[in-house]
């Protein structure tokens, strides 16, 4: 009996100093674990499979569509960005996007203004109040997209679930869509590209823009930018189904609202902003 009582006490007293001693090596372990984490995450495939396994489908935050079924207008994928949480100078979302789609190193001969950017950080200033907000600017995934309107070949289109895409198989590189886009969201590929990522085939002579990481979404994942923002604990970006009233994004929009950029154009954008 007395032995039994002593045992746990012994364990406790032994473990307490260990905690103190182990602090340094635990930090080391954590930093190593972080590095190991990025290695496994880099191909992106593991993220999809874990996301699917978690099956967070029913809440409208991820796609639950079977890959053999057609996309439908039952869903409308969108993003909500809280500019109050978006730090000036932070480019985690931009970096994640460049990494996901392999955008860097594919335009060394291009001028800065020509370089591909799916997402970029901009600072908006309200002239009357002087209020500045820093926000990520990307394809707004309009319902009535001007890019799709003007495209002469049908390469620019809005998928049934609200994602604006370029079908590079039929894009002739006329760049009419780039002129039509009020958000300057599109880029033209000027150079030969090699080693494209699986999720983002891209080549010279075609126009491209944010795909909302459509391959990830189809596989039940979330866009790379949203994932990076959440992972770094900024939590400024929410992804989800705008048509599902239970999704986090719909709830948040209902609670606090969200503005469109250039609402005067009545494009019904899929990307909304708070705190402008």
């Amino acid at each position, binding site marked *: 009996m007395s032995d039994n009582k002593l045992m746990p006490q012994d364990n406790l007293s032994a473990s307490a100093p260990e905690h103190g001693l182990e602090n*340094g090596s635990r930090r*080391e372990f954590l*930093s*190593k674990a*972080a*590095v190991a984490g*990025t290695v496994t995450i*880099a*191909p992106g495939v593991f993220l999809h499979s874990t996301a699917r396994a978690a099956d967070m489908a029913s809440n409208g935050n991820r796609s639950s*569509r079977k*890959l*053999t*079924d*057609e*996309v439908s207008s039952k869903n409308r994928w969108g993003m909500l960005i809280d500019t109050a949480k978006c730090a000036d100078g932070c*480019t*985690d979302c931009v*970096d*994640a996007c*460049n*990494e996901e789609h*392999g*955008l*860097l*190193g*594919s335009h060394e001969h291009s001028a800065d203004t020509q370089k591909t950017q799916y997402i970029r950080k901009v600072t908006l200033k309200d002239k009357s109040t002087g209020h500045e907000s820093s926000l990520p600017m990307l394809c707004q995934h309009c319902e009535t997209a001007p890019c799709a309107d003007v495209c002469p070949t049908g390469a620019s*289109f809005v*998928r*049934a*679930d609200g994602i604006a*895409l370029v*079908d*590079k*198989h039929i894009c002739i590189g006329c760049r009419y869509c780039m002129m039509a886009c009020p958000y300057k969201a599109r880029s033209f590929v000027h150079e*030969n*590209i*090699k*080693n*494209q*990522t*699986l999720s983002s*085939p*891209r*080549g*010279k*002579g*075609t126009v491209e823009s944010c795909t909302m990481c*459509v*391959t990830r979404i*189809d*596989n039940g994942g979330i866009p790379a930018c949203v994932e*990076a923002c959440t992972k770094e604990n900024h939590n400024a970006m929410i992804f989800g189904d705008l048509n599902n009233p239970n999704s986090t994004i719909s709830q948040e929009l209902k609670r606090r609202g969200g503005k469109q950029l250039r609402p005067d154009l009545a494009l019904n954008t899929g990307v909304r902003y708070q705190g402008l």
Partner: protein
Amino acid sequence: MNRFLRQLTTSTRVLAGSALTAVMLISANAVAETPFPTINEPSKAEKCIQPEDEMRRNHMNYILHERDETMHEGIRGEPSSLANCIDCHVEPNEKGEIAGIESEEHFCNACHVYASVQIDCFQCHADRPQKFIDRKGGETAHIKHKLQEALAAATETESEKGVK
């Protein structure tokens, strides 16, 4: 439309077959001197999604059809996809190098050069499996940040070892 195409391809096949026989009969001696593409047999896959002769003739139809369905309707996970072809058929050679699409050693290019048919897929799509892609071009501030962390952790361990 499909039936028409099928008929068309069948008749083309018959024509091509008879033409080939004729050529073979005439120039039986020259066959040995005729260059023939060297096609790599994939080592890891047991068999292709379709028999070899079917794939040789009609691989483009399989890929093209599902290309549009995938792009516009989001239908994925069909057995035939360019990425799946590449995953099996493009492998490193004895030196451990991957021959790019510009090389005649590349699985696709071997025949396409031989048949003098231009191949456009790889202007946009990767010509090798994702695991062989050199991502130096994709080095971002984000990665640099992670590398610095790893480096710091490594030097920390080293200095600790030095103290001990």
